[in-house]
């Protein structure tokens, strides 16, 4: 199997606070990794390091064989392979849904507006909101906005998708419409790293579960083992707390 992401002995500090503490994680092409853990455990930071939204201070990160360095070329090369979906959607409010999708392809990939529009409409169909193409994001529901954000990311045809708590800012009734889209994507074979607290979803799509706390990877394993017989006390406690209700 080809390696997709290779994280080796990565550490990161915010001032005196050690956000990542010697983290190593390797994922292969097509693999779906779900990361969970209490807030402040470093899971978002880890995902954000993969496409250089945060800069790691120790260790190495390789994405599809390219090492992340200070060189702009390595950063832009990696960003062109990796798509990202944020908790807060981060859609561009001054642009229509369609323009949100085509901005990257036209400006960064140099596609013509016509080709970009064609690509965008296909993806809007896939996330099931082609009828919203000419609306501004502010007029959509949270669930619709997040689906647009996923489509915007896919418009760049990434090989890997990162999801940073994609449903945490959503009203409960909208969570499933977004998760359904992600599950579809997973079934099509997309390589992904997902930070989430949606354990039902994790059980369904994850090839591997990762539990983080205090900047470290505490436990890692197949979903079945992970949920049914967690090895560490901390992981057991965490799962109990979030699975209780």
């Amino acid at each position: 199997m080809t390696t997709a992401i290779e994280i080796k002995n990565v550490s990161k500090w915010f001032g005196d606070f050690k956000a990542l503490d010697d983290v190593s994680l390797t994922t292969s092409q097509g693999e779906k990794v779900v990361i969970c853990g209490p807030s402040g455990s470093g899971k978002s930071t880890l995902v954000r390091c993969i496409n250089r939204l945060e800069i790691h201070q120790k260790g190495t990160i390789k994405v599809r064989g390219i090492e992340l360095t200070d060189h702009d070329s390595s950063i832009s090369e990696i960003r062109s392979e990796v798509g990202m979906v944020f908790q807060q959607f981060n859609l561009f409010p001054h642009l229509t849904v369609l323009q949100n999708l085509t901005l990257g392809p036209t400006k960064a990939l140099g596609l013509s507006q016509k080709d970009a529009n064609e690509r965008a409409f296909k993806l809007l169909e896939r996330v099931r909101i082609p009828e919203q193409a000419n609306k501004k994001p502010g007029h959509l529901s949270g669930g619709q906005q997040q689906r647009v954000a996923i489509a915007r990311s896919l418009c760049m045809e990434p090989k890997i998708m990162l999801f940073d708590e994609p449903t945490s800012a959503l009203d409960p009734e909208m969570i499933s419409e977004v998760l359904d889209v992600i599950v579809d994507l997973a079934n099509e074979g997309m390589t992904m790293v997902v930070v989430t607290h949606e354990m039902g979803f994790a059980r369904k799509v994850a090839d591997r579960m990762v539990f983080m706390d205090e900047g470290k990877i505490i436990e890692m394993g197949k979903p079945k083992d992970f949920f049914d017989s967690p090895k560490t006390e901390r992981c057991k406690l965490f799962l109990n707390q979030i699975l209780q209700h």
Partner: protein
Amino acid sequence: MKKHFLILVFLLIFLSGCSSQPGAWGWYVIDPTTKGGYNNVMFLLSGFSATIQLSLLAAFFSIILGLVVALPGMSSNYWVRLPSRTYIEFIRAVPLLPMMFWIFYGLPVILKSMGLNIPIDPFWGAVVTLAISDSAFTAEIYRAGIQSIHKGQREAAQTIGLTSFQTMRYVILPQAIKRILPPLANQFIYIVKMSAFASVIGMQELMRRANEVVVSEYRPLEVYTFLIFEYLILVLIISQAVRWLERKMGSDESRG
């Protein structure tokens, strides 16, 4: 409401001078029905053209200069940030009048010593001074507007492969402009008022013309009252425009 009240007060002061009581007011000096008064009024009003030209040009250069100063001022690199931060701190600390004297009387000396024979006339001296003095404030307006855009916008732009220039051009500035334009237009009022200082280096604008009429007629009260009205009208027009702009931008503001 407050503004209309203010206009009313001024109008009352003005009308009180029109009563036939012998006293402080002598409106004959700007009474357009007499030949002398008519000439004075036309002379005073003709200052508008210079004041407006001066202000518009100064504002134009200040808007460009401000952006040029503001952008490196927001860099994460200390050495890129430093010159622009120093410029802003320095220019904000220098009062307008000394700066105008320095540019009008001092700068030609430096230019000459460098072998450049560039004369600085009152008009361009004033435009340059006003533009530089104002640019420190416009730079801060840009910075406030740009920094008010949530950092998630920049991150999202980066993840879809935009360069930092493209991010600024297509994502940040179009959103920030709505927050920048109203205070920028407000800053224009400041320029209009400060343009009065150009009178001291011989620019024939509103202030200078009023001074000249005062010297020849010795009627400071009436002439300066008239002068204040001239500025008032100019500023009221601008602030109405600003308000229209704010409404237009506000109604277009979209959520999320």
